[in-house]
């Protein structure tokens, strides 16, 4: 039960971050040179991530949870 309360709090935090807290944070659209680099992507090597996910899924009781996208050059 305590765990679910923590989860709920984390979800609320995420909602607040995405709706309100972030309008002042970040960079201008033309300042994304570093963020556009391959090595700065949240998943820089999708094949390796998939391989690792498969290994750990077979050996451990947890799996997934990780990411998607955002960051990057933000073009178009």
């Amino acid at each position: 039960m305590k765990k679910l309360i923590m989860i709920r709090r984390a979800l609320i935090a995420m909602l607040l971050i995405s709706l309100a807290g972030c309008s002042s944070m970040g960079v201008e659209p033309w300042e994304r040179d570093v963020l556009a680099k391959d090595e700065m992507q949240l998943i820089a090597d999708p094949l390796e991530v998939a391989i690792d996910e498969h290994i750990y899924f077979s050996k451990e009781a947890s799996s997934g949870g990780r990411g998607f996208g955002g960051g990057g050059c933000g073009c178009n």
Partner: protein
Amino acid sequence: MAMFGSLRLFAKRLLITALVALPFAFGTARADEPLDLSAYDGKVVVLDFWASWCVPCRRSFPWMNDMQAKYGADGLVIIGVNMDAEAGDASKFLADFPANFKIIYDSDGELARQYDVVAMPSSYIIGRDGKQVARHLGFKVKKQDEYEALLREALAQ
């Protein structure tokens, strides 16, 4: 010397228009003098904000070359505003995607802020009377005809 309202303060500085950079110029980061569009009075100016790391920009350059060639005689002036922090990166890009239009540098983002650039790349069409008539955010190959139509509309004034 009509400028749109927010540039009046700017115009007071009365500095000569930005340098025209040669496509193969090398050098450290620099920003040009504030842009004085009075030199282009009566012409349609396209200010295109681009950077070497922006992939859609690779597709927009050939198209802008085409537009400059096609409508230059009618009074179209395309100015590419480079936003790279290092001008060397811009030079590498221009070596692969040459520009047959003016390139100016805005590494400190002054001009971009002035024009409230919210996307990369961004194009602002400034009419013959110096007022901004249109902008497009991003560059989509499928929208090329749409972009061209906006230019023709501005040139028809």
